[in-house]
């Protein structure tokens, strides 16, 4: 260390300490930097949030609602856009010209618009909702002071067609209610997203994510069948001056609801104008009623299935029966002497059905009624479906008279959908299919096909065949109005009195009449339920078979169902062709 000044010696002596200090400081900084870089997730997210709040704006993007189609792809529910128009008075350069242009496009008072363009407020609402065309015309003005806000709106191009099936949408197109719109709201509505939009011009603009859009739904409804059914129902309700009516057409092999009509109905495009809230109810799944003598067919089917009666079973009908202290009378208080199951159905004998019910006993009868689906929602896929009311032994208010009355469809409440599902099981060789209104759900990830599913076997093939033959006889010998030349029809009309707290209603318009039938009886392709509430004719057999026939005549054309003779020839030709092929 020779030649070094004392200052240099001091520096040289201290230098290692300084170097060590600097190394430690650098290490500290590196560790802190790494620590900052690998912060816990929550802290990092918080910091990122603070950072992005400066550079980003959050935009709430409403999800585009899925569309609804009929089975052939005809649109039933669509989305359209309407606008709300506002103005920033501070940005208006020429209020006179602007108010003139806006009032001309919207057809509103020019002075009113002018008043808003010179307002002292920062923002003034001008008009809304305005149509897409008007909105586009306003946008074409390219006026910086005008602001258009989109309002999503659901549009039903078919208007009243299948209104109760489709349903309505509330809250500016966001929340589905009633029908499929309500039952499949989650599927249709998609997801409302909060999209973060960068204010930095160098950032790539984000597109609306495709997966947020709601899924489309294809229904089992056939638009043409639906139209004809609605037309015939409307005519029937008006002809018989009924309070309301319902018709359901179902394919028994698949459970597909081909048509579901109620009258009076509503226009879902203008549901806010409806004065009677009852019009928003879908009686096909929400309107519970006592089905009346139509139920006798199911009582007979149950008795045959449980072995209580045979096709050769008879009883002595004296027109009257007393069960649990209540009287049961036949129509017009008639006695029929020795009667069999066919007579019970053809003559609609209440005492006969009650006799069958009594012979079955409560256990067998109610287990069969449960098997037919009464007292449970069918799960067809419509909003707020009712379960009906089937009281069983042990329930409050149940007494022995219920067994007798339930046997011919009184003191039991069902929905039309439950009834047609039960009879579809008879038509489908005893196998009950799950009724369904939705055929496909189409999303970004592909098509979800709703395959027909089986609920259960309710009765054996043999029992179903016997009941079918009995119902064919009902049409040929009792409900002649449903007879169609060339086609074998199986059916059963029904009349139900309307129960009140003090007994049954009397007077005019005091019954519920119905008819259920399927065709062709030996190869059923459609089951049709017709129901009229409070028509001017008391008895169902005088009214509903005619309505059924009018509908069936259109159905055989629309569903391409040839008559029995042609079908047997076609089947023979097919058999020959397959024999030749093999």
């Amino acid at each position, binding site marked *: 260390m020779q*030649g070094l000044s004392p200052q240099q010696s001091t520096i040289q002596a201290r230098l290692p300490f300084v170097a060590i200090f600097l190394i430690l400081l650098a290490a500290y900084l590196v560790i802190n930097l790494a620590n900052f870089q690998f912060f816990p997730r929550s802290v990092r997210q918080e910091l990122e949030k603070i950072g992005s709040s400066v550079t980003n704006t959050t935009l709430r993007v409403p999800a585009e609602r899925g569309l609804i189609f009929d089975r052939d792809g005809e649109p039933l529910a669509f989305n359209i856009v309407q606008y709300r128009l506002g103005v920033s008075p501070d940005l208006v350069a020429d209020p006179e010209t602007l108010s003139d242009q806006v009032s001309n496009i919207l057809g509103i008072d020019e002075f009113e618009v002018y008043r808003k363009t010179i307002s002292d407020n920062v923002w003034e609402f001008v008009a809304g909702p305005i149509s897409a065309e008007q909105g586009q015309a306003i946008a074409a003005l390219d006026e910086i002071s005008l602001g258009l806000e989109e309002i999503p709106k659901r549009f039903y191009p078919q208007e009243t067609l299948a209104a109760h099936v489709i349903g309505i949408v509330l809250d500016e197109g966001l929340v589905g209610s009633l029908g499929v719109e309500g039952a499949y709201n989650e599927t249709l509505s998609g997801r409302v997203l909060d999209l973060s939009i960068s204010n930095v011009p160098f950032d790539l603009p984000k597109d609306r994510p495709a997966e947020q859009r709601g899924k489309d739904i294809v229904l089992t409804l056939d638009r043409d069948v639906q139209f004809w059914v609605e037309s015939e129902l409307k005519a029937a309700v008006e002809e018989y001056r009924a309070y309301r009516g319902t018709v359901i057409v179902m394919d028994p092999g698949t459970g597909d609801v081909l048509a579901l009509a109620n009258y009076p109905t509503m226009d879902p495009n203008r549901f806010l104008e409806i004065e009677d809230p009852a019009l928003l109810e879908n009686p096909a799944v929400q309107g519970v009623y006592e089905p009346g003598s139509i139920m006798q067919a199911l009582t007979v089917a149950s008795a045959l299935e449980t072995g209580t009666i045979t096709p050769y079973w008879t009883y002595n009908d004296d027109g009257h029966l007393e069960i649990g202290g209540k009287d049961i009378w036949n129509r017009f208080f008639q006695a029929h002497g020795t009667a069999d199951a066919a007579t019970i159905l053809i003559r609609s004998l209440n005492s006969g059905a009650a006799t069958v019910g009594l012979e079955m006993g409560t256990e067998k009868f109610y287990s069969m009624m449960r098997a037919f689906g009464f007292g449970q929602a069918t799960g067809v896929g419509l909003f707020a479906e009712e379960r009906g009311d089937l009281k069983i032994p042990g329930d409050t208010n149940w007494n022995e008279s219920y067994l007798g009355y339930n046997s011919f469809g009184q003191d039991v409440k069902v929905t039309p959908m439950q009834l047609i599902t039960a009879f579809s099981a008879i038509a489908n060789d005893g196998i009950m299919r799950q009724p369904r209104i939705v055929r496909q759900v189409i999303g970004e990830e592909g098509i979800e096909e709703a395959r027909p599913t089986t609920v259960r076997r309710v009765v054996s093939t043999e029992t179903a065949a016997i009941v079918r033959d009995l119902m064919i006889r009902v049409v040929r010998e009792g409900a002649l109005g449903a007879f169609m030349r060339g086609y074998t029809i199986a059916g059963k009309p029904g009349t139900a009195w309307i129960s009140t707290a003090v007994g049954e209603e009397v007077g005019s318009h005091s019954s519920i009449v119905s008819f259920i039938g399927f065709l062709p009886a030996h190869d059923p392709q459609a089951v049709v339920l017709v129901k009229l509430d409070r028509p001017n004719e008391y008895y169902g057999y005088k009214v509903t078979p005619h309505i059924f026939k009018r509908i069936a005549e259109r159905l055989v054309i629309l569903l391409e169902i040839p008559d029995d003779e042609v079908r047997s020839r076609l089947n023979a030709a097919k058999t020959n062709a397959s024999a030749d092929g093999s």
Partner: protein
Amino acid sequence: MSQTWFQHTFSRKRFQTRNQATAMAILGIAVLLILGSLYLSQVASFAITNREIEDLISRRDQLKRQNEQLIGEIASYRTVPRLFARAVEIGFRPATNSEIDYLLIEGYDSKGSKARADAFSPEPLEAAAPIYEETFSGWLEQQFTLLTEQLESFGK
């Protein structure tokens, strides 16, 4: 090596100016200027492109809405009551079953509506994959063109 490196440093009294260093500094500044210009032009073109994309997205959404509006209008013109009324107007009437002849056609499902429904199976749209066919020389050429345009626009 009697002196350590720090003694050498402390012993220097002043910096010496050299021609080579000056040239290097000027060159460095020039390179920085070129890089800066390139960066600025790149960023500017990026911002312009983003604005164009935003406009296109907005235009696409607008066209989509107009398209849906038109589909809705078409659907309302194709409603059964309207078609039926029009058919009656021009002399048609609903056929009755007795007026229909059935023919056996091999392979045809007589349940027409079901056949039609099965045929209706909209395919989900698949996003087209972007195609990149840019080369380095092409990119350089593009950048030079953009830079020229930028300079021209600055000049204007």
